[in-house]
């Protein structure tokens, strides 16, 4: 009998127990006699247990059930024109639209943005409000809803949101009037205005008479 070391895949199969009984016994017998293979076996076992340990990593995330159903319903109704924008594309649009951003707070004299944003809202109700303003929902995620409204509806929308104490930001888009094909946007940051060149993106233009409002959601935290 020739003494043959176990191959990597045999060790892997042994760990997952996807072997027929004879093979299994043979491999185990080999391991009990061969230090080299035993060492290999143990380091593979260690590697697998390291990656498996991620299963125990406590990942906190918000509950997706309500938001999913709201988005689904709104789309089904087709009253609202939903555009699915991948999150990343939405960020690009936000940058494009960032020329001037005005923040609507609970009351206009208050500029306390740093305070804890605690506005709870019923997203279903908000989509209905937006609908009543003939607006459309552009993007929904756990943190906010982006909507687009006709500029003529701005005052009405602001009153509605302020009356209901709903935290929101109004995003006006001078960058849009610039030719989007230039693919240049002004990004306002703490270091001043920075010109950013966007290389390649699916530009979704905001119609000229539209404004965008971002409504914030700070719904309850869910831990597993």
């Amino acid at each position, binding site marked *: 009998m020739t003494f043959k070391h176990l191959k*990597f*895949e045999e060790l892997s*199969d042994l760990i*997952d127990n*996807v072997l027929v009984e004879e093979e299994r016994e043979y491999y185990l017998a080999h391991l009990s006699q061969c230090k080299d293979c035993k060492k290999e076996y143990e*380091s*593979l076992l260690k*590697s*697998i247990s*390291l*990656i*498996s*340990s*991620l*299963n*125990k*990593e*406590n*990942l*906190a*995330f*918000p*509950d*997706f*059930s*309500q*938001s*999913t*159903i709201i*988005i*689904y*319903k709104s*789309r089904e109704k087709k009253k609202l024109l939903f555009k699915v924008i*991948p*999150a*990343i*594309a939405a*960020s*690009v649009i936000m*940058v494009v639209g*960032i020329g001037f*951003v*005005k*923040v609507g707070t609970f009351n206009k004299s208050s*500029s306390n*943005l740093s305070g804890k*944003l605690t506005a709870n809202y019923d997203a279903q109700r908000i989509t209905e409000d937006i609908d009543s303003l003939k607006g459309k929902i552009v993007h*929904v*995620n*756990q*943190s*906010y809803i982006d909507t687009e409204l006709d500029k003529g509806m701005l005052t009405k929308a602001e009153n509605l949101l302020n009356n209901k104490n709903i935290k929101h930001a109004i995003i006006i888009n001078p960058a849009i009037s610039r030719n989007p094909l230039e693919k240049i946007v002004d*990004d*306002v*940051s703490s270091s001043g205005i920075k010109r*950013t060149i*966007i*290389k390649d993106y699916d530009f979704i233009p905001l119609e000229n008479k539209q404004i965008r409002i971002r409504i914030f959601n700070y719904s309850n*935290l869910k*831990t597993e």
Partner: protein
Amino acid sequence: MSVNDIEIVNRVIEGNIEQFSLIIKKYQNMVFRYVYYQFNNYDEALDITQDIFITVMEALKSFRQESKFSTWLYSIMVNHCKNYRKKSSKYSLVPLKIIKQEDEIDIQLQDYRENPETKVINEDTIFIIKDEIAKLPEDFREILTLRDIDGLSYNEISDILNINLSNVKVRIHRGREYLKNRLHARGLI
């Protein structure tokens, strides 16, 4: 009394839409975890997970009930991540800023990771493992997440990835060997 997935799915199809929340609550942990380890980015994982559940809900009528519901859902999840990766390579992210009159303030979107409950056994180790997983070739990352993090069986993986069992085996072997070498190089083994 536990209700099985198929029963719930049928109710949703019949119009009892709210019932879908039972499905989401059951699977969101697995889905979020999978997505998170594919991208190693918390914010992207939130958005992608949301998109996956909407996709699943909208596709519900096309679920043939030939496979387990979970298998069908996971295959949508895997494909969604694949497609997202292809698309997103084109974009780059710029952080969102907001102005209030003369002041400038970053919008502080709530970061769920800051929850004090979120503890890890050994942060440095976990960081390296996640980093190495994120750097794996896509085929390996997919299969090792399904097998070694989620603990799915070879048969389930074969159905989800739509590859035969011997390919599942081969891919697991190669993926594990690759990762083991990487973890060794990082001094964890």
